[in-house]
């Protein structure tokens, strides 16, 4: 009487080479990127000091945004293309804070507090819409991003202004010459580098100086602790259960729909904070463009760090941001050196951003299909 077919891995002990192979395959994307960077960096001719400083700055600037993507992935909702909604909320907060001339860290905190209800509301909409489109979350959040962007533009371009009925903005430097509508480029002098410079750390390494925006890093570290802690709370466990299997979680008594919405709300609010941190580093806000690439770049970075649509860790975030931005900084110049046109390098970097998301999505879907096939075959007893 043969025992029923057991799951292989329960008995099988993986050999050394199998482990290495497994490591290479599951981390193929970051490895490819490291290889690409290793080739491109010497070609571009940037100095180590410059690159290290750039990476430190960009890590501080972008990590918070990318970290906000972790919670929806944990809850099984895939890549939250709707994080751009949070970015828009953050920008609205910044518009007001700049108008009221509230500066420094208080300005940033105030912008964050203003953006919170807006982001929560938008996140609620996003979560509810996603619940109506189960199985198609990513496309839906993607299109929702465009849709809300249209509404955002309508609000910012037509309802905010100095004249009569508009949402009052008093600083004429923020408003278009016709009296209503916010200008495209706003100087965030008040909060420029407010967080970065809160705890400045500069060190001289001989021929180059490195300045580290400690204030921002402290905030990022705090966020990481929050994520680790959150995973252990009941809410976090519920989300992970939903991420594993919605049906099972539902029959276990978890309010699936409500929890999914909460996941998106949290992610959107965090994206708002992330966008504020991002913009305080840059110092200028493009009212109509700054948030557009946020979603794509953050998602591309996360995927480059080795995350998948269903699994992402904090390590993926930092590895991904570093690799993505390394490629971002290096490719235009590398393209120029290689082929003689910097424009080519820029298009190459666009291609990589889009391509990496395409590749990651393909790999994820393909793997999921393989697993389902294997499960089916297992049931058939092959």
């Amino acid at each position, binding site marked *: 009487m043969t025992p029923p077919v057991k799951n292989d891995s329960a008995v099988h002990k993986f050999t050394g080479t199998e482990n290495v192979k497994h490591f290479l395959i599951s981390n193929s994307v970051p490895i490819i990127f490291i290889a690409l960077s290793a080739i491109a960096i010497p070609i571009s001719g940037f100095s180590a000091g410059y690159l290290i400083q750039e990476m430190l700055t960009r890590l501080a600037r972008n990590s918070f945004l990318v970290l906000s993507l972790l919670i929806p992935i944990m809850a099984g909702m895939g890549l939250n293309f709707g994080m751009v909604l949070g970015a828009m909320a953050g920008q609205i907060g910044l518009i007001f804070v700049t108008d009221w001339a509230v500066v420094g860290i208080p*300005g940033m905190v*105030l912008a964050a507090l203003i953006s919170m209800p807006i982001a929560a509301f938008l996140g609620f909409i996003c979560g509810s819409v996603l619940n109506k489109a189960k199985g198609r979350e990513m496309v839906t959040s993607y299109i929702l991003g465009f849709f809300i962007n249209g509404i955002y533009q309508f609000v910012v371009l037509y309802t905010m202004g100095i004249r009569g009925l508009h949402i009052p903005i008093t600083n004429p430097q923020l408003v278009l010459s016709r009296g209503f509508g916010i200008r495209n480029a706003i100087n965030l002098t008040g909060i420029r580098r407010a967080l970065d410079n809160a705890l400045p750390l500069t060190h001289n390494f001989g021929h180059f100086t490195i300045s580290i925006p400690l204030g921002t890093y402290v905030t990022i570290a705090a966020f990481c602790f929050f994520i680790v802690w959150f995973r252990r709370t009941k809410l976090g466990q519920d989300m992970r259960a939903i991420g594993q299997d919605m049906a099972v979680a539902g029959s276990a008594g978890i309010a699936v729909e409500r929890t999914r919405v909460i996941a998106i709300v949290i992610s959107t609010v965090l994206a708002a904070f992330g966008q504020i941190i991002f913009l305080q580093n840059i110092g200028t806000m493009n009212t109509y463009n700054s948030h557009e690439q946020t979603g794509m770049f953050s998602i591309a970075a996360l995927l480059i760090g080795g995350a998948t649509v269903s699994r992402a860790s904090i390590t993926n975030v930092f590895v991904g941001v570093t690799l993505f931005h390394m490629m971002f900084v290096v490719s235009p110049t590398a393209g120029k050196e290689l082929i003689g046109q910097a424009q080519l390098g820029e298009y190459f970097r666009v291609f990589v951003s889009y391509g990496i998301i395409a590749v990651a999505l393909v790999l994820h879907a393909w793997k999921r299909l393989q697993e389902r096939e294997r499960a089916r075959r297992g049931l058939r007893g092959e």
Partner: protein
Amino acid sequence: MSAAPNLGMRRLLIRVALVAALVAISFVMYDIGKERNVLLDNKSASIDGVEYEALVGVSIIVDGGKKTGVRPDARIAHKMVGRTHTIRLEISEGGKSIERTVRLTMNMKSWMISLPALAGGARDIYIPRPAAAQPLPPPSPSGEPETPALGDDGPGESLMGI
């Protein structure tokens, strides 16, 4: 069964308290973070019946910043963040110097600080600001160049979607 309504009540109270706290923090942030354009006036002023003479040969240092001279009968504008500041007046003639911690208690859009009153140790140093018809005097150099918002108008071509 009596536990359930209490639990709901407790949660509601906690949430309301949280929201109230956030709102309170917002107001505090606004207060301590707002950059106000404060006018410092060096004209002879009369407050509470006491006459204060315009100061001659005075330079002022706000919060340890750059030293600026203020001529008698002139006024300067200074951007100040938050409410509490130290104003130091140095009078060249006689080498006198007065330092005072000032708390901006009034609405600085309709009031200004009278330097003579400050020097004279008055309790109330505020005098009404003249009507907005007067253009603001040039700001005192405070280390930050005054860059206006970049002039680009409107959203430009790269709008998303269709």
